[in-house]
């Protein structure tokens, strides 16, 4: 059982006029100078999963500038022996479309075929910044296990936006509220269950002998069991606030460094990063146990901030998991311990155009 991105083709995507890369299933190292186009490449892969990718960029930003000629990302994946063709892109001035095996599909279909998780430098402050970022990280963890999570979250969001508009417009028709609150309770209930189940799976997939600190992940969610009733009761308060004050959209993810009993937000920057890495590894182990393969991992500039022992431990863990991880860094020396266990590409840039070249290791 395995999951791998087998072939990636980019057309006019950000700094990449054209990329055609074939990956053999080993972890992939992408090294190159600052601004060479490494993160752009990871972002392209991240757009083969539901959502707006690892930069949360709008579709208009993604085409190679200055000319707006549209952009396209094509990926061929092999999952448990079956090939699928994933494609996403936008024609000039048009919205983004997703095709799976040649057929236009909702984005949620991507999550079903290719679970994916990423860590980026922007997430270094995840534990101390606003809850929104943690919720998004949590929901991406969930998505790996529960592909229906995206639909529930989108449905919840839609119904809540409608309800918030009713609140602001001072609409009082109780039936209209009840109808929206019923949708919110239905989809919100699914969201909460999925999140709880995910944290339980992660807890059992922690590895005691890892050199990374093990996090205890806690869902801070005061959503009442009967959300429909709570929403009905909260209408007056919500109208004052102009928005919905109860529900899973207010949940938060918190973490403790279990061995020390210390909240993640009080750990050093390096420890915070290590907690994120061990969460990602636990997720990969849990998914491996559940469906037989780890997710695709996009680890942007992760190696640079680890000491030698942890870097080697990360590489060993990725290889043990058989996970196809895409790792970026400014120089190839960061990846020496991987040796031939990884496939190596150099990313370079001339006159604003990025180029990706495979390198043979001696």
């Amino acid at each position, binding site marked *: 059982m395995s999951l791998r991105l087998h072939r990636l083709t980019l057309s006019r995507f950000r700094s990449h006029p054209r990329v055609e890369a074939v990956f053999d299933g080993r972890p992939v190292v992408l090294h190159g100078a600052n601004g060479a186009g490494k993160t752009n490449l990871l972002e392209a892969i991240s757009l083969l999963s539901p959502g707006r990718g690892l930069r949360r960029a709008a579709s208009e930003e993604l085409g190679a500038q200055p000319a707006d000629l549209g952009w396209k990302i094509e990926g061929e994946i092999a999952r448990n022996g079956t090939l699928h063709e994933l494609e996403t892109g936008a024609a000039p001035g048009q919205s983004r479309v997703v095709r799976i095996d040649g057929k236009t599909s909702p984005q949620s279909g991507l999550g079903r075929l290719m679970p994916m998780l990423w860590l980026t430098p922007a997430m270094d402050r995840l534990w101390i910044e606003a809850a929104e970022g943690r919720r998004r990280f949590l929901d991406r963890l969930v998505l790996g296990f529960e592909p229906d999570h995206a639909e529930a979250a989108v449905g919840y969001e839609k*119904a809540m936006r*409608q309800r918030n*508009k009713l609140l602001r417009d001072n*609409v009082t028709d109780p*039936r209209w509220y009840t*109808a929206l609150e019923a*949708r919110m309770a239905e989809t919100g209930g699914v969201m909460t269950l999925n999140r709880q189940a995910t944290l339980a799976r992660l807890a059992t997939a922690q590895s005691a002998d890892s050199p990374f600190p093990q996090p205890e992940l806690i869902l801070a969610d005061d959503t009442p069991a009967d959300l429909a009733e709570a929403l009905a009761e909260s209408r007056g308060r919500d109208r004052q606030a102009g928005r919905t004050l109860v529900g899973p959209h207010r949940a938060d993810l918190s973490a403790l460094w279990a061995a020390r009993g210390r909240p993640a937000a009080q750990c050093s920057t390096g420890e915070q990063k290590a907690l994120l890495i061990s969460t990602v590894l636990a997720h990969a182990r849990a998914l491996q146990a559940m469906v037989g393969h780890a997710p695709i991992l996009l680890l942007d500039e992760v190696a640079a901030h680890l000491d030698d022992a942890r870097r080697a431990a990360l590489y060993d863990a990725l290889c043990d998991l058989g996970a196809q991880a895409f790792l970026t860094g400014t120089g190839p020396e960061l990846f020496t311990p991987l040796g031939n266990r990884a496939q190596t590409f150099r990313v370079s840039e001339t006159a604003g155009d990025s180029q990706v070249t495979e390198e043979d290791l001696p």
Partner: protein
Amino acid sequence: MARAAGEIEALIALMARLPGLGPRSARRAVLHMLKKRGMVMEPLSQALARVAQTARDCRVCGNISDEEICPICADEKRATGTLCVVEDVSDLWALERAGGFKGRYHVLGGTLSALESIGPENLRIPQLVERIKAENLREVILALNATVEGQTTAHYIAETLAPTGVSVSALARGLPMGGELDYLDDGTIAAAMAARRAL
């Protein structure tokens, strides 16, 4: 000459705004008509002019036909006591194409949307309530799309109709989430109709 080209361009621009057509297919369609002005373009333009004059929204159900009362509402055999509520005329036509439903329809003309300022009074819901009594209806089937908007509207209507005592059912789940009736094949529609559930 330049003026004629301008008129043709304007026609292409109008055609390109139709659903299912883009700039390229509109250009192809117009060129085809221009080459066959007598065989294609003349009859088409006469038909368009005629239908633009005669087409009416049915006073009872909201269907579009040549009459004030559409053929379905005019047909006594369709007074079965069962009414099927749909979002759009396209859904009504899709259900008719699939066959199998013998009763009459009620077209809402959209779904509830606070964000787009579409409230119950914009959706012919008051007319629906009146029809329950006026037509002595026993069952209302809500054939709304499986979208958040469709399901919210279904819930709203079910609650609004509760005091009338009419039995309310919904199309069976199994319609794909976000799927619109109009795009489903006829077999799927018929199966969903047969497996409807009470609300």
